[in-house]
């Protein structure tokens, strides 16, 4: 659906040039939900904005649905854009129009006959569950409702591709969940490819099939979400995965463990209980005490994915051997602190 080759974007500013994207290549398949995760300033927005040419690439090419979007003339680009929906962190709804007319807007742009357009808006309101808010103005809506309007608006012209620039970053976790659920729903119901960018690993975990990690203007890792969760290949990916664990761990765990003699490790495993037998056999085999600080089973793309944070204490050498043993048993281990 999307094929990005050697995309480079340099912002020229009076002071100095900023390299926002450095030789980025990426392929997004038809029908998948593809996530791009990176820290603030990594170049995510620049990347997604290049795909509908809101930002003009310095070099490189982008093909969307078979069309080389980077070499279209103005008129063809406008037509192509009508088939690429986009949603935004700040929703960007017109305050001068009510919900109905906001969703009507893209249909006016593509000059759909009024009767047909009105009917389409009705369908879209139903899809996003806002039929009763048709006559309401955006300022009276909650953030989640605003984003639903944004989604309806983006779907109006029946796009094949939806771009999402941090669409849930201004929302609370509960609302984020419901919006992500809606995205997942339209992805399968409408056979819609979704490319989303985020700085939040939870978003990736909840909806994405595949993910690319962007760091400092470059894609450093691309792959299946589950694979990256269980076996992150780069420090950046690791820190994103740990950010989820850390969110749910009380801060004290990290502070007090610095005083303790123990070593804090994160064990991750795929499947409901795959980790437990190995850990108990480790305890039998080695003279270490294992203190469970945190444990949960998450779902990554509908597959159970376990995380355990253990504090291992005992003789330094034995602890190291125990960790090595876990490794050998095929568990993903990450040492969170070195006591």
């Amino acid at each position: 659906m999307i094929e990005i080759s050697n995309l480079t974007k340099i912002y020229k500013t009076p002071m100095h040039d900023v390299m926002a994207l450095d030789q980025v290549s990426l392929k997004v398949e038809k029908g998948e939900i593809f996530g791009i995760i990176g820290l603030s300033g990594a170049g995510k927005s620049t990347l997604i904005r290049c795909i509908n040419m809101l930002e003009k690439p310095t070099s490189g090419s982008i093909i969307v649905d078979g069309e080389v979007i980077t070499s279209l003339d103005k008129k063809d680009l406008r037509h192509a854009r009508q088939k690429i929906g986009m949603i935004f962190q700040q929703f960007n709804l017109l305050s001068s129009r009510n919900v109905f007319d906001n969703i009507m807007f893209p249909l006016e742009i593509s000059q759909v006959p009024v009767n047909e357009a009105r009917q389409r808006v009705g369908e879209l309101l139903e899809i996003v569950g806002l039929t009763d808010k048709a006559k309401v103005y955006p300022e009276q809506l909650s953030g989640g409702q605003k984003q639903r309007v944004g989604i309806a608006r983006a779907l109006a012209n029946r796009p094949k591709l939806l771009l999402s620039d941090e669409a849930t970053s201004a929302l609370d976790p509960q609302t984020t969940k419901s919006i992500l659920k809606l995205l997942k729903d339209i992805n399968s119901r409408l056979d819609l490819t979704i490319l989303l960018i985020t700085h939040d690993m939870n978003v990736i975990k909840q909806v994405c099939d595949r993910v690319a990690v962007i760091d400092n203007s470059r894609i450093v890792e691309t792959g299946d979400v589950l694979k990256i969760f269980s076996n992150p290949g780069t420090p950046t990916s690791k820190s994103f995965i740990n950010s989820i664990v850390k969110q749910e761990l009380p801060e004290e765990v990290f502070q007090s463990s610095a005083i303790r003699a123990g070593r804090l490790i994160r064990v991750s495993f795929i499947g409901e209980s795959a980790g437990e037998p190995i850990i108990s056999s480790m305890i039998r085999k080695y003279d270490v005490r294992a203190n469970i600080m945190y444990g949960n089973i998450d779902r990554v793309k509908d597959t159970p994915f376990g995380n355990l944070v253990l504090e291992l204490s005992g003789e330094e050498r034995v602890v190291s051997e125990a960790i090595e043993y876990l490794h050998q048993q095929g568990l993903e281990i990450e040492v969170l602190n070195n006591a």
Partner: protein
Amino acid sequence: MLEIITAIDLNSWLTSTFGDNAWIPQKILIATWETIYMVAISTFLSYLLGLVLGVILVITSQNHIAENKSVNLVLGAVVNATRSIPFIIFLILVIPLTRLIVGTSIGTIASIVPLTLAAIPFVARLTETSLKEIEWGLIEAALSMGANTWQIITRVLLPEAKPSLILGVAITTINLIGYSAMAGIVGGGGLGTLAYYYGYQRYEDSIMFITVIVLIIMVQAFQMIGDSLAHRATNKGR
């Protein structure tokens, strides 16, 4: 129009009420009407032209939807130059042009030319300020849907700036009331002429006084109307 107003019973009513002084309210009514007429037409014309100019100034500015450095630079320079000429000098400068358009440089109709011309750059800058307040994200959203420049102007820029543009009309009207009084001094008609000939040159204090009161009421009225319309446009749907 003037003939109609003065021809009806008003005249006889004024004579019976004010006796020998009936000419004072008569003159004031006529002058007020002339002022409203001048101001209304020049506000309308200058707003129409100033709005177009303001929109062009905005969309041709850097990184905007129809960036065009030279157009922007030239228009900006013309607007600034016109705005920096004091109105009283402007009045005299455009006399030849006024003669060309209206055939005379004296009277209510003739005043409309300098009033309109002087207000156009003012309106252009007001419009520019209003349109630049619009969040760029809205324009970007429209671009992402494939909107062209005209669609963005008519469906995003102008509707989103509506409350602020309405306030701009009120401010322009009020300014033009002041300008029209100045035009009156050089024979432009309306309340300015009245105040100058009777109030200043003939020491008719009462006429001066009433003129001032009428002007204050007019300004207040337009401000209130503008505020309430702008308020209504902002709070649509609340």
